[in-house]
């Protein structure tokens, strides 16, 4: 046991380390510093968790509108019937146990001058620093005819939960010989390989259950994440590039951009023509979540931040992490959000203590499945530039799984991917 002597104790007290929420008659309670974290996804949960782990003396409040969160990662497995939606559900008891005050309410505003957060339930939370992990929202109006209501018929399934289940049920009900049309969004968007993993896992489901069915990807881009690995696997498993291919990818150049949809007719209007689907999965263009936009954090759709601290460039005292932030080279992924959350937590602690902020490398690791035993990854190491302008990727590290690897390598990545899921969930939500 570490047994501090009187002198070191007084030193700690002076440094403000020991002013936890413990009744101390000589220490004013108001001296406890407060951090409010908004959003209970991987970014917000990790930030709250690690703030308490690294600085137990802080008063940390996490505000999240839903009682449960469904992880987006592994939700393509639910769509393909490999996993149940419930297995993606996480609650907030772990964070409560870690000492985080969890508030189940919707944030309606952030007042950066008064340093308060207001909620729909009429509560107000004061903060010394605030961390916003607002995630994404969809630009429904970017596709004529599409809307939140239309998404009940043509699901996006790009926020996990009921939408995931809606898409799964439609695929189950689809007759053999049907066509699944997937509309992939323009950059930047959440989970860059997500639409292509989804196309792969749906094709794998068709191959096993409805072998005459087809997958058509209509894309607003000419290139996508892990493209060569996907194409290699599609060629091998789904006859990609042949007239009988189960998967067809229509790039932007080939007219894959979709601007209009006929919801009742389940038909999307692309530049290349009309595509009728038996099941249509329309993933719209995206922007930072409403809370970030309403707070003036996302002037151009996404939140500009200082890469060393994740503090907003528009609103001092408020930090933005995860999908809502412009993290330059870092992709919008769950792992990136959790890495950023840890870096932001450390920066917030140092700033509250009046200490200099130091920078450390951030990691992204992201897996994509083709089938349950065939998986590949991308990894990257990112460092903030000294001026905080960018999070640059280390060019001497990272990258995707190699092409032309044997089945054992792909199987190992599949096992590591599921292991990744268990660890990141526990590490984020406790």
């Amino acid at each position: 046991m570490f047994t501090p002597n009187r002198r070191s104790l007084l030193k700690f007290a002076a440094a403000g380390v020991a002013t936890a929420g413990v009744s101390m008659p000589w220490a004013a309670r108001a001296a406890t510093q407060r951090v409010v974290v908004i959003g209970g996804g991987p970014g917000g949960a990790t930030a709250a968790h690690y703030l308490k782990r690294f600085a137990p003396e802080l008063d940390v409040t996490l505000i999240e509108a839903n009682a449960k969160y469904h992880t987006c990662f592994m939700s393509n497995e639910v769509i393909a019937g490999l996993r149940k939606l419930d297995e993606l559900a996480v609650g907030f008891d772990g964070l409560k146990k870690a000492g985080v005050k969890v508030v189940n309410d919707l944030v309606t505003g952030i007042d950066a001058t008064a340093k308060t957060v207001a909620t729909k339930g009429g509560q107000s939370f004061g903060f010394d620093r605030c961390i916003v992990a607002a995630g994404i929202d969809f630009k429904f109006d970017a596709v004529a005819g599409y809307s939140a209501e239309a998404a009940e018929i043509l699901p996006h399934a790009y926020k996990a939960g009921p939408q995931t289940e809606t898409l799964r049920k439609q695929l189950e009900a689809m007759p053999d010989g049907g066509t699944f049309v997937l509309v992939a969004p323009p950059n930047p968007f959440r989970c860059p390989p997500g639409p292509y993993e989804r196309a792969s896992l749906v094709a794998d489901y068709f191959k096993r259950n409805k072998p005459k069915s087809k997958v058509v990807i209509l894309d607003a881009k000419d290139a996508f994440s892990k493209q060569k690995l996907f194409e290699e696997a599609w060629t091998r498993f789904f006859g990609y590039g042949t007239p009988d291919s189960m998967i067809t990818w229509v790039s932007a150049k080939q007219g894959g951009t979709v601007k209009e949809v006929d919801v009742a007719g389940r038909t999307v209007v692309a530049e290349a023509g009309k595509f009728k689907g038996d099941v249509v999965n329309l993933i719209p263009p995206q922007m930072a979540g409403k809370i970030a936009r309403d707070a003036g954090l996302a002037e151009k759709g996404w939140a500009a931040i200082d890469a060393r601290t994740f503090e907003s460039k528009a609103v001092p005292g408020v930090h933005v992490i995860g999908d809502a932030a412009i993290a330059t080279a870092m992709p919008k992924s769950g792992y990136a959000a959790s890495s950023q959350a840890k870096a932001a937590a450390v920066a917030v602690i140092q700033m509250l203590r009046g200490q200099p902020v130091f920078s450390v490398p951030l990691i992204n690791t992201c897996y994509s499945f083709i089938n349950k035993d065939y998986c590949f990854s991308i990894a990257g190491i990112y460092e903030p530039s000294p001026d905080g302008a960018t999070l640059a990727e280390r060019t001497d590290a990272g990258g995707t799984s190699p092409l032309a690897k044997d089945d054992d390598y792909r199987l190992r990545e599949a096992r590591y991917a599921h292991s990744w899921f268990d660890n990141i969930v526990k590490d984020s939500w406790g």
Partner: protein
Amino acid sequence: MSTQRTPVTLLAAALLAVGWTSHAAVAADLSVEALAAPCAGCHGTDGTSVGMAAPTIAGLPKEYFNEAMFGYKTDTKPATVMGRIAKGYDDKQTEALAAYFAAKPFGRPGGQALDPAKIAKGKELADKYCQKCHENEGRDADGVGVLAGQKLTYMQFSVADFLSGKREMDKRQKAKFEELVKDHGAPAFTDILHYYANVK
């Protein structure tokens, strides 16, 4: 709380309340905590994996950790993502990570699907072929990895790499591996690994 007590006693209580134990004292350097934290997404909080494949990296001897990272950096140790990740850390950072994780307890949360029959067979084999180097039921790790409570899947991948020659073995290990294969065949490794994975 009694007001008769001195502020120092109260402060000591406060420190205890916030977990200011010897572990917290070791972990107090926030810059090293920040360096190590991103590893947890794959290897578990504090380096103890609750996933069924990624190995626990807490409690590994510093030398073992450093050697593994060197192997990943130089592509001399078989890897999937670690060959790409390790290259992003310089020697000083790697050493700081090695010291950090070495000071963390190797957690054994259980939850692995293990076969009691294999565990029993494996224990006998391990006593004969393995325990001289993997002492104390594989908990101790003097120049070797911790096997006790390590992830079965990870250890299976490692043994496959040793047997195929993709991963280098020292003379003593090579001799023991060959002896075991000769006496009992390669499947005997599965029994041994079930046994070690089960050690609490």
